[in-house]
């Protein structure tokens, strides 16, 4: 018997709980002398543990026997979240399961009475013929149904979907909401996800964010755990499907939107590169871009029905400055109440434009560097802490009418600076109040590139983002991310390889056709 066979057999005995003291001693001896044996043993045990997790749809669901201790966890978590236990699996006695929060061109054929926004939705069956309706469950879940759609309401923690489609989003900390269809149960573990009934009752499930369990009804098919960016079709079995961000209508990022942080983009990346052109000799930073060379400008927007949420951006450079300017379509422009004087990790909550940019001429493109969470235990390398990777956030602090700048460096986002000396910035609101122009000049020193600024002919990395806020300028709503590397997936915040190319030109006034959108917009889904 080789050591490997012996370790394997002892590990089997261990997990079967039939191991003897003598066998434990022998295993100990084998592992003690052999690091290779330790690796093998760990892999073998991890396969066993992975089977627990895979077959149960996640660690929490792997818990079989002892339900009671988990309740303790639920209590602790619920107390922390300050939501009361109602949001956490347990229900308060239901009165009405939901209210109709708002509608858009909605026509109902069941019930026969006209339903207005604000109406209480009692247990019963409903049919939305057309339009969009947003339901607010007392459990803390918001559901957007798109007509035609048949559904039934029973309790605040579930709905039955007979036809049509729904997108559900749980408030932070709320878990356990279930969408039932004739083919599947979709259990929410704190997330946003869509469910649609296809042909012959086939159920499509798509997760935007968080975690969901899709479980076929009847049959022996195994349930599946889905994370953000995953989709499945469920009938007798569960099959992976293509994630399509635009498959479902989601809540509009707007003043009544209760959905919180707006974590993921509402757009498909239309560009994999951005052109940076030489700045004309005199550029006034005044919120008017008519003195700019806009020949490298790109224009991108959120997917319908949110196409009004759009970003145009242009980049220019000279020996001293990087110029960043553009226009954002925004029904609540320049509202941010996030003060630059209060230390915090994120300043863009009240609406912002931001850029990730590399000035590392030696590295070029693709940009390398990973956030600690992406490295999976690999110690930080120099490129993860690269001073030449900068995350710039531009926002307008309304109470003081100030164009602010937040800078952080490296993929670990160190060296935070707010409104450092040397930059200039101006915001200007559109006459119709539906957007704003922004214009900034950022000295190369602040991007750690004063010694060796980018030159014509360089191809470096960059990525642009826009965040929208609620009407008060306090909370994040949806966001847009563009200029992405279509070959990479994952969070731009985690992995710098996801950034697109920034092409620095020696000569401006680029000929028509230089700026080219991607033939097929990439389905970037993560922030």
């Amino acid at each position: 018997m080789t050591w490997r066979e012996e370790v394997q057999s002892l590990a089997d005995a261990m997990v079967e709980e039939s191991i003897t003291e003598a066998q434990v001693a022998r295993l100990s001896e084998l592992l003690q002398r052999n690091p290779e044996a330790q690796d093998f043993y760990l892999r073998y045990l991890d396969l066993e543990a992975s089977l627990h997790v895979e077959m149960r749809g996640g660690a929490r669901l792997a818990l079989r026997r002892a339900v009671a201790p988990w309740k303790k966890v639920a209590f602790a978590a619920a107390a922390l979240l300050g939501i009361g236990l109602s949001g956490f699996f347990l229900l308060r006695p239901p009165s009405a399961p939901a209210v109709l929060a708002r509608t858009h061109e909605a026509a109902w054929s069941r019930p026969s009475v006209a339903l207005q926004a604000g109406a209480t939705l009692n247990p019963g069956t409903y049919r939305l013929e057309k339009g969009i309706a947003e339901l607010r469950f007392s459990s803390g879940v918001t559901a957007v149904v798109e007509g035609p759609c048949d559904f039934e309401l029973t309790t605040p923690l579930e709905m039955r979907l007979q036809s049509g489609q729904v997108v559900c989003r749980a408030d932070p900390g709320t878990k356990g909401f279930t969408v039932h269809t004739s083919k599947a149960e979709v259990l929410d573990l704190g997330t946003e996800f869509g469910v649609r009934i296809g042909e012959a009752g086939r159920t499509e499930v798509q997760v935007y964010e968080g975690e969901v369990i899709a479980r076929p009804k009847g049959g022996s098919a195994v349930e599946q755990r889905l994370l953000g960016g995953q989709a499945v079709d469920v009938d007798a079995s569960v099959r992976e499907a293509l994630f399509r961000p635009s498959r479902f209508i989601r809540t509009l990022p707007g003043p009544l939107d209760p959905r919180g942080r707006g974590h993921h983009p509402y757009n498909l990346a239309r560009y994999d590169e951005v052109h940076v052109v030489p700045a004309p000799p005199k550029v006034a930073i005044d919120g008017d871009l008519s003195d700019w060379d806009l020949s490298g400008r790109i224009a991108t927007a959120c997917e319908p029905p949110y196409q009004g949420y759009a970003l145009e951006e242009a980049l220019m450079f000279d020996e001293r400055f990087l110029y960043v300017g553009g226009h954002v379509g925004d029904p609540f422009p320049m509202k941010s109440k996030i003060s630059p004087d209060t230390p915090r990790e994120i300043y863009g909550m009240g609406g912002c434009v931001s850029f990730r940019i590399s000035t590392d001429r030696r590295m070029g493109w693709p940009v390398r560097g990973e956030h600690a969470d992406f490295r999976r235990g690999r110690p930080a390398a120099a490129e993860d802490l690269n001073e030449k990777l900068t995350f710039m956030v531009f926002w307008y602090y309304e109470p003081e009418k100030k164009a602010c700048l937040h800078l952080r460096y490296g993929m670990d986002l160190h060296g935070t600076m707010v409104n450092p000396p040397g930059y200039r910035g101006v915001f200007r609101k559109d006459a119709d109040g539906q957007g704003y122009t922004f214009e900034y000049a950022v000295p190369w020193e602040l991007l750690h590139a004063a010694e060796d600024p980018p030159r014509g002919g360089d191809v470096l990395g960059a990525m642009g983002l826009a965040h929208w806020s609620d009407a008060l300028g306090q909370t994040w709503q949806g966001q847009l991310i563009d200029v992405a590397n279509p070959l990479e997936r994952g969070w731009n915040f985690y992995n710098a390889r996801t950034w697109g190319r920034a092409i620095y030109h020696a000569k401006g006034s680029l000929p028509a056709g230089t700026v080219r959108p991607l033939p097929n917009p990439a389905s970037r889904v993560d922030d």
Partner: protein
Amino acid sequence: MDQELHALFAERFVRNENRIYRYIFSLVPRRSEAEELFQETSLTLWKTWERYDPKVEFVSWACGISHNLVRNHLRKRKNQPCLLLDEQILDQLAERRLREDGALEERRRILRTCLEKLPGRQRQLVEEVYGGDRSMKDIAGETSQTPNAVYKLLRRIRAALFDCVDRKAAPGGAA
């Protein structure tokens, strides 16, 4: 309370809980005990999230906490024959396990593909044993086998899955 930190913590917790469970299982490879320790760890994490430093890698932090709970667990049962490896070797394993976490995560992803390739009956058995709540005796009885025969078959399935993952893992890859 600090909403941003809390949101960050909650997100990382949900994202990483499987890894924490598997870490615990590598030290205490008995399912019910590992589950209890996982719950205890979850509870501790939810109680101490305010002390979480977002700059620290979440999995290492959480696994450090669970390692302490495992140590306490072992010490409590010091006087009984506990049929687990001794603390000194577990410390070595714990350290190695954390270092290999990325590679093991990759192996888990590959395992999914390998599971799909299992012959139907074997796959069904895996689902029943690992996914269900029934005892081995019941599962064996249904197919008129002895529990021992089922254990043997499971050993063969595990070995086959392990080989399958080995074959597909990048040679000399992340490990």
